[in-house]
């Protein structure tokens, strides 16, 4: 009857494409086509990355900020089967808590002495733990009030995701009610960019300009992700969290307190979100209430690229997404970045639905 959709999805189905191509050019031909496509795509990618070295480097740095958000998002996604739509707003909440620390909690003069080559002062190191703690506690409270009740009721993942949409909207409303919708700025002192001139194969000089803050943010992202890795793999409760994510029923009959691993997931996910939000705002130099919603798209792109529920995959996925987003601005208007992420999601789902690293879970 209506099989247009079937046809379309056949067109988008890898195996079907394969069969069709084989019937025309044979197995060998297909291999040749595959190889040359790979070489062409890879060659283009390398060419683009090298000629746009400035953008590539900045993409790596932006990607590491995405990574902070994506690791937490992926962890919650994998452990609680919840694509937490409020994750971006948890990031925004963390950033506004930091703003509160700068503005009201510490003496104003403390914000003036910037650290080394960076634009921020050491008050960032006061704001960071406060923001992380606040959002971690907030995430746990929301879990207890909303998601736990729904889990007990055996709510479907879709309903939970919908609830997280509600949480996202409500949270943004309250943030805007308290702080307004104006652009906010963290206290900062202007600093010189790091500038390197790279002699590319003696052919051309490429200038790489990097804001110092971004280096700090990237290092912080790597440290925090590594700390998460250590926690998940080296500690008893970290392993229990992974076990519960793997097989919740079995974890329960093994005596693991699954409610507790759920809470831990929120503590880490929420804390990482806050750190991401604060560092992102520090790196960008500005803070908008809407940015939590906007960043969801690259974050989900990173999670899909890394394979859902795989936090380290999400880290790599975030770097990938960050580089693609920045390098695309060589040809596209920067405001098109969300569309680039959207396209990346679509292409990934078509080509590698289990993520770039293709570790499929049954």
């Amino acid at each position, binding site marked *: 009857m209506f099989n247009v959709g079937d046809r379309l999805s056949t067109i988008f189905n890898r195996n079907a494409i394969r069969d069709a191509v084989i019937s025309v050019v044979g197995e060998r031909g297909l291999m040749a086509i595959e190889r040359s496509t790979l070489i062409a795509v890879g060659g283009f990618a390398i060419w683009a990355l090298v000629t746009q070295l400035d953008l590539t480097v900045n993409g790596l740095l932006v990607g590491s900020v995405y990574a902070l958000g994506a690791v937490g998002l992926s962890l919650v996604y994998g452990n609680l089967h919840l694509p937490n739509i409020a994750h971006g707003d948890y990031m925004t909440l963390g950033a506004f808590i930091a703003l509160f620390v700068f503005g009201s909690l510490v003496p104003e003069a403390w914000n003036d002495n910037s650290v080394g080559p960076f634009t921020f002062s050491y008050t960032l190191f006061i704001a960071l733990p406060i923001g992380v703690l606040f959002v971690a506690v907030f995430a746990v409270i929301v879990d207890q009030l909303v998601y736990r009740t729904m889990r007990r009721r055996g709510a479907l993942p879709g309903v939970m995701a919908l609830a997280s949409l509600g949480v996202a909207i409500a949270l943004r409303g309250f943030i805007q009610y308290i702080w307004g919708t104006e652009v906010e700025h963290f206290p900062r002192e202007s600093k010189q960019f790091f500038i390197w001139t790279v002699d590319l194969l003696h052919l051309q000089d490429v200038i790489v300009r990097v804001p110092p803050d971004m280096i700090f943010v990237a290092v912080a992202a790597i440290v925090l992700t590594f700390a998460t890795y250590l926690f998940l793999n080296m500690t008893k409760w970290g392993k229990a969290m992974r076990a519960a994510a793997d097989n919740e029923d079995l974890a329960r*009959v093994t005596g*693991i307190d699954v409610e507790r691993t759920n809470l831990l997931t929120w503590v880490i996910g929420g804390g990482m979100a806050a750190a991401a939000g604060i560092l992102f705002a520090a790196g960008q130099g500005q803070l908008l209430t809407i940015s939590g919603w906007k960043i969801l798209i690259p974050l989900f792109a990173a999670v899909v690229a890394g394979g859902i529920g795989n936090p380290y995959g999400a880290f790599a996925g975030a770097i990938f997404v960050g580089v693609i987003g920045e390098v695309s601005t060589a040809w596209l208007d920067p405001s098109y970045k969300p569309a680039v992420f959207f396209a990346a999601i679509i292409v990934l789902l078509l080509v590698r639905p289990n993520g770039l690293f293709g570790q499929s879970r049954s």
Partner: protein
Amino acid sequence: MRVAVGENEVGENEVAPALEIADLEAGYGPTLIARGISMVVGKGEMVTIIGPNGSGKSTTIKAIFGLADVTGGSIRLHGEDITGERADRLIAMGIGYVPQAGNIFPTLSVRENVEMGAFTLHGDLDARIEKVQDLFPLLRERWKGNAGNLSGGQRQMLALARALVAEPSVLLLDEPTAGLAPQIVDQVLAQIREINRSGVSILLVEQNAIKALRHSDRAYVLARGRNFVEDTADGLLSNPDIGRVFLGLSGADEEESDV
């Protein structure tokens, strides 16, 4: 009218059996499956539950670990009432459970799987883990690899190892041979009997009824959520009526059943 049954005759001095289930009623939500099941596992015994689908075999075991809703009856471990106890308490009291499907953590390493079995325990685990490794040399070879990469038989071994690391006195096994190749079925059952001989009382639910009976001391046959027949394993194997109805034996035919 409690009767203590076991390999070793229990005399007048009342020693409570390892596991005692009395008039158990259990099910899932409004659906009642077990409608008054009673059974006893003596110390050091290996007891098999057989019966058709929906007769309450798995439900009985699941009810002990809170995976089915208990609406009546009682469950006692060494004479102590454990009805409705939490899983971590049960493990601490010395009862282990290997569910049927999904009984390993596939993305954890073999080692981590075994460690999870000792999650609720405190103190030094190295000695216990060493012991389990000795019991399953095959697992030792794949110690650091992902459990998801193990073969079906190896997965069952790992599931057993995970339960055994807590050193239970009673072990509940829900169809440990489901989906395994026939040669491996015997291997796994023999290994289970080995564990039993080392002093662990075992309650086993099995589809491979004949093979399981050959390794067991006694068996309960369930039907429609109630006890149907209870006998020694040899007795059941030689009972022509039971053989035809529940074990799929027709005459001298000894094909394994698929009830």
